[in-house]
């Protein structure tokens, strides 16, 4: 009898633990967990300054009150960032079609700011037709980078071939500095909808 009660107790507690640990069976990976967490409750990110590919300064959150669509890259990335760059170009077009071009800004932020000089960012931008107005490439100061990556939940690890592997996504940041949504770079509908939501 004691053994049966103990077993039932264990099943209840264990089930509860797994339920908690997976957000009710919805998030089995850290990546889906971070997306689900901001979707449920937008999370504040510490504001930071950036130097853009044209040498100008910018900030996240956007000082002009625009919603920022932020992705993290490094310019010498041979694979994922290049396709993500193509996605950002298409996303820019979608933003224009949706009539949001004056209320939204697209930002590709380098997580390798020591290597990604203004020249390298510029050449990356030219390669992907970043216009520098709606969409620009930018880098933070190296000393604030860890804080930024931690706020956004971005993890970049050396790929043993001189580059990095990192989780790629578009992060929707409201003008008052909250991370409101995270979507795959190709999920244009989702990103536009999140941007509209963030503009409300």
């Amino acid at each position, binding site marked *: 009898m004691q*053994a049966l009660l103990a077993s039932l107790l264990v099943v209840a507690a264990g089930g509860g633990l*797994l339920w908690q*640990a997976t957000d009710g069976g919805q998030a089995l990976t*850290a990546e889906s967990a971070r997306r689900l967490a901001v979707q449920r409750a937008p999370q504040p990110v510490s504001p930071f300054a950036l130097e853009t590919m044209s040498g100008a300064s910018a900030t996240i959150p956007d000082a002009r009150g625009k919603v920022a669509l932020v992705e993290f890259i490094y310019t010498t990335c041979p694979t994922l960032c290049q396709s993500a760059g193509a996605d950002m170009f298409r996303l820019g077009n979608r933003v224009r079609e949706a009539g949001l071009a004056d209320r939204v800004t697209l930002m590709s932020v380098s997580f390798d700011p020591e290597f990604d000089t203004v020249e390298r960012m510029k050449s990356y931008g030219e390669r992907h037709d970043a216009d520098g107005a709606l969409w620009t490439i930018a880098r933070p100061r190296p000393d604030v980078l860890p804080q930024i990556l931690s706020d956004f939940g971005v993890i970049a690890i050396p790929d043993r071939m001189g580059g990095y*592997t990192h989780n790629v996504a578009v992060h929707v940041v409201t003008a008052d500095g909250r991370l409101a949504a995270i979507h795959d770079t190709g999920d244009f509908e989702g990103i536009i909808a999140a941007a509209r939501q963030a503009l409300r």
Partner: protein
Amino acid sequence: MKRRLRPGLAAIIMFACILGNRALEADPVLHVLVQLPMLGLCGALLAPRREWRWAQGGFAPLLAALFGIAFWMLPRSIDGAVSFPVMTLAKFLSVPLIGALLVIGWRQAHALLRGFLKAQAISMAGFMAFLFTHSPVRLCNNYLIDDQWRLGHGFLFLAIGLAMAWTIPLLTNARPRPSPRTRAKPITPVQSGVSA
């Protein structure tokens, strides 16, 4: 092994796991298939040799261990152990406990339950092998896709190893049914019981 040596051995293993944590966590194969089992072994070595009434039949401790193992099989938990100190701490506390619960439960478990759990362990290792070798996306933000693939193969070898370790003794121990000629001889209860 002499029982009095066990705490010392457990302490050495625990120390090695803590000191080598950074290096072990850097590689998912070492993290999941070496460090976690070693931590479990720590707890197994320290498991008290007692029979509690709540643990009768081994069900409650084994179930608790299974839930713990399920938790640490989530890619999210493994990722968390690398990213967050509180999850690292949880790993060092909970995995030895899981090992101890496994031993406590195993001692009291019926042979059928043991066999069931062995079959489960093999199939679960096989499932993990399939998952990690076939997932098109990275399941852990802290590990490369190549590492994930290597971990999958580690699980495959584990599944094969467990299957062999648990079935080969059955093949060699299996005693043939007594032939009509020898039937007249007395058979000890142990012999007749095992082959059933």
